């Protein structure tokens, strides 16, 4: 049967649309010209400026600290919540689900300003701690959804089998359920980490003077800094994203084969 070629053409056009600005940024990052514009020769000076900027590294360090802390905490909280949602049905879990679902459907600016006013009202000083609290709050929902999705595919009869063969509940949980579920929990954690290191809006509201993260620093560079240095930074981050996405796909395939 003849198929329309419109879907394929649209897909190709969309991919061009997706990558065209990114390719342009990559080329511009090697342009010696200070104000973008016409090509004035190949240069690595913007990368040099970038790598000698101590602020970038301080912001990167803050980003990673917040990312690791909020990933670990939201992985634990989200996995526990997913177990509760999967095992128990009833009014309490319906409310629980609603509570976890809500942060996914409110615009992030709302979460940012409400947490800011909450901290202001309690006279809590804005720092990496307040940023981490904010990040955990939005990461929990994502981790829960991912782990819950995996739990729904999980065959719980292997748990019964383990217990029939003499394992107590804790052993069955530790030796059977957790290892089999690990790829799912890890996938949730990876999602949380990416969301955390990427977040600007919420972080912008709850970060103080000494707690600039990389996205917040990029934003201030966009407002006041020199475009070519941002281009250089963009290329570095693009490369990191590329490697991370490839790795997560690799991880996913590994997980699939084990399951």
């Amino acid at each position: 049967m003849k198929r329309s070629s419109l879907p394929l053409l649209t897909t190709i056009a969309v991919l061009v649309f997706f990558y065209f600005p990114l390719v342009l940024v990559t080329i511009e990052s090697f342009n010696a010209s200070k104000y973008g514009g016409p090509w004035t020769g190949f240069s690595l000076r913007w990368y040099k400026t970038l790598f000698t900027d101590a602020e970038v590294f301080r912001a990167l360090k803050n980003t990673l600290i917040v990312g690791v802390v909020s990933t670990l905490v939201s992985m634990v909280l989200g996995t526990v919540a997913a177990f509760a949602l999967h095992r128990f049905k009833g009014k309490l879990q319906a409310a629980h689900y609603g509570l976890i679902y809500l942060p996914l459907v409110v615009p992030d600016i709302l979460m940012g300003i409400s947490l800011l006013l909450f901290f202001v009202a309690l006279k809590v000083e804005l720092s990496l701690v307040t940023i981490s609290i904010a990040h955990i709050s939005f990461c929990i929902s994502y981790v829960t959804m991912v782990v819950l999705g995996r739990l729904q595919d999980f065959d719980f009869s292997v748990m019964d089998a383990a217990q029939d063969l003499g394992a107590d509940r804790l052993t069955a949980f530790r030796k059977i359920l957790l290892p089999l579920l690990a790829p799912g929990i890890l996938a949730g954690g990876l999602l949380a980490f990416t969301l955390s290191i990427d977040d600007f809006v919420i972080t912008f509201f709850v970060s103080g003077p000494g707690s600039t993260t990389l996205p917040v620093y990029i934003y201030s560079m966009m407002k006041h800094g020199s475009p070519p240095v941002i281009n250089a930074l963009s290329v570095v981050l693009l490369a990191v994203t590329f490697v991370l996405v490839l790795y997560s796909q690799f991880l996913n395939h590994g997980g699939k084969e084990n399951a």
Partner: protein
Amino acid sequence: MPTMIPRRRREEWLLTLPTFFWLTLFFIIPTVIVLAIAFKPAAPHGGFGEGWTLRTLMELGNPNYPAIVFRTLWISAVATALCILIALPVGYCLARASRKWRQFLMLLVVIPFWTNFLIRIFAWKQVLHPEGILKKTLVALHLVAPDATLLYNAGAVMLVMVYTYLPFAILPIYAAAEKFDFSLLEAAQDLGSSRLGAFYRIFIPGIRRGLLTATLMVLIPALGAYVIPDIVGGPTSEMIGNKIAQRTFVDRNLPHASALTGLLLVTVLVVTGGLYVLVRMRKIPRALGRSLAATGTGNLTTTAENTAPVTPESIADLVAEEEKNKEENAEEDAT
């Protein structure tokens, strides 16, 4: 075993309390605080004062604000409609591609999705810049006047919104299309439906859950957008999000910022509530969770085997109806 019941209860509370506590403390209470501060008077040096007042809410009647709300609504609506229109053929194409191609194409779609969104916005700012490549090309093709500005208007905001949110629309539509049984389309065509007719009457209803998820995943962040209009928009394309940030950081008028946040929240609730009623589907939350589980995690290769095939009754009904029509025609031919 009667002792099982209290133990189950205790276990349930033990597993539920941590998130319940965390999200109540850091999500529900702050939201209530924001809404409460809208009723506080503004303090002259920023922050908020003592007592309660309705003045801030009255000030939202100032003609400035309804205009901004209206603009926020239409910019978001256009961007969402464009995203869905573009995502439909892309999701369809991805779902029908061979396994190998599908993996490769998904990877290409997912990479911009994971790229820091400030960087993507900044890339567009350079593309649209007066000295940028797009402007020069368009001028050379005589498509725009040399003094036209591509930046700092509602068009630029919508374009960058589509760029930024398009993966949010593609992923749920693809996730739904992947579970769609494409032989139904062929069946419809065998039964006399046109290609486009089959697409509209079978495919669209078949993936309607994915469509609604896609709409919400674009519309909600669009309504709350702040960075995009801030970077590529201008004074004529300010949205509610800009005003909230301006009141918070520039004027330090927290009651005003709170009232605007309440306004945004009401807008989002009315729009999403309206969509729910419109589509009359109650299982969206689970559907969103599933599509997140399938897409957000780099789980790019969910196979049809491990997911139950979704064949909504509507399609079956339609096919049955077509079948009936055909039988009737055959009978007529026979007589």
